[in-house]
């Protein structure tokens, strides 16, 4: 048996409200299936399951706010991934609900599940208090009224959510500045070749398949992390925990204010087209409020690109427990002297904010140099 727990979707998250179960007891689940929606400071998040099995029992009802780590359901990992066998209507069901055992006809149970009626609130009119279908039907109207009052609104007011998000960001950033001894490095990257290559590449594509330059930056950071793995991980229990997968948290601003940095899983292993497709999907879902739990919990480093806001250089704050953040400013025109000759070029300022407990400036400098080098060969990204 495995417990499906309220996930921690960020350094600052302490509790979440279960909005809705998307699976029922008896349903087969596979790793990656979305089985519930949880309301957090970052919006309504679709929560995935990380084991294969059968959803054995729901422990928490929709509407409950519970601390991170609370068991929400039990999943039977040995359960057959097969069709559910429904008992016949003539059979009486005595499946436990919570601590109680209720006598319920299968038909009544099925209807109650369909209508969302809590059987513990239904008075059975059958023999020995057995709940029958007609009892559920009678209770339906009352339950529907209760649901309207008790179930949390799917969309909280924007003001309230913004306020909660600000508090959440405040907690994470205050923790970062309190606990993490940041050091900062910056370099200027010549983007001329990368942008020329991208323009040529895009000219061969339809607009739908266009690649934005930010994808080149993400891929270059991901490949540089392969060379410098100490920037890809977390600082926990007084030591650097390296993470094998490179899941870049991509800072995405929200229209109503605030930001989220969901993970682009396995950034280093994706081709540019795949990365672009996934980035577009991630940005759209972030702004639509339909992120998945793994996207909020799996980031191993953050990349923020504030160039579109005309920022020259970013001095980032690391998102704990991560150990690094790479920032990019705007692309600007400049003149370089190459072999004694002046040449117009396009540049970008790349910066690194890193945790001095986990790495030193020397390695940080090499990391930035790797990013710069990789961007000079865009066709290899």
């Amino acid at each position, binding site marked *: 048996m495995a417990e499906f727990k309220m996930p921690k979707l960020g350094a600052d998250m302490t509790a979440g409200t279960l909005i809705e179960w998307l699976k029922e007891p008896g349903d087969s689940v596979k790793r990656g299936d979305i089985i519930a929606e949880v309301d957090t400071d970052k919006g309504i998040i679709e929560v995935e399951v990380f084991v294969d099995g059968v959803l054995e029992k729901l422990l928490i009802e929709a509407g409950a706010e519970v601390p991170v780590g609370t068991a929400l359901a039990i999943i039977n990992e040995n359960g057959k991934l097969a069709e559910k066998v429904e008992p016949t209507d003539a059979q009486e069901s005595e499946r436990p609900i919570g601590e109680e055992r209720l006598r319920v006809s299968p038909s009544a149970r099925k209807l109650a599940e369909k209508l969302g009626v809590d059987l513990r609130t239904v008075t059975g009119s059958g023999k020995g208090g057995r709940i029958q279908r007609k009892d559920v039907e009678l209770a339906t109207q009352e339950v529907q009224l209760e649901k309207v009052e008790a179930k949390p609104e799917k969309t909280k007011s924007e003001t309230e959510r913004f306020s909660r998000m600000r508090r959440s960001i405040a907690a994470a950033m205050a923790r970062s500045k309190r606990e993490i001894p940041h050091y900062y490095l910056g370099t200027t990257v010549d983007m001329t070749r990368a942008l020329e290559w991208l323009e040529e590449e895009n000219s061969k594509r339809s*607009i739908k398949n*266009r690649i934005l330059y930010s994808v080149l930056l993400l891929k270059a950071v991901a490949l540089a992390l392969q060379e410098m793995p100490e920037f890809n991980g977390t600082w926990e229990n007084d030591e650097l925990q390296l993470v094998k997968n490179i899941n870049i948290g991509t800072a995405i601003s929200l229209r109503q204010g605030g930001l989220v940095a969901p993970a682009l899983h396995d950034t280093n292993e994706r081709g540019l087209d795949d990365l672009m497709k996934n*980035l577009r999907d991630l940005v759209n879902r972030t702004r639509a409020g339909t992120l998945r739990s793994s996207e909020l919990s799996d980031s191993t480093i953050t990349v923020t690109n504030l160039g579109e806001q005309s920022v020259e250089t970013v001095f980032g704050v690391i998102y704990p427990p991560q150990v690094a953040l790479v920032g990019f400013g705007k692309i600007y025109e400049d003149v370089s002297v190459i072999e004694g000759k002046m040449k117009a070029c396009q540049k970008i300022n790349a910066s690194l904010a890193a945790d001095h407990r986990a790495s030193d400036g020397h390695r940080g400098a090499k990391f930035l140099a790797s990013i710069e080098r990789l961007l000079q060969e865009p066709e290899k990204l």
Partner: protein
Amino acid sequence: MNREELESRVLKTLGEIAPEADLTAIKPNVSFRDQMDLDSMDYLNFVIALDEDFGAEIPESEYTKFTSLDACVEQLQRLEVT
């Protein structure tokens, strides 16, 4: 499709990309990015949506030209959308 209809459909498309925008306040000759908080991904989504909504088959070379309401109408008229 006359200019008014084109403007109306462009604004509808824009509203789907940036639902918080006050479309009644859009100045037609000012770039969207100067009067709205659009980033490059929004712009890409907007041009793709125009391409799909109007069946315009916007060539890549025209990608950067849908910067304002006036520019959109001009480009769509040039592409002879129906």
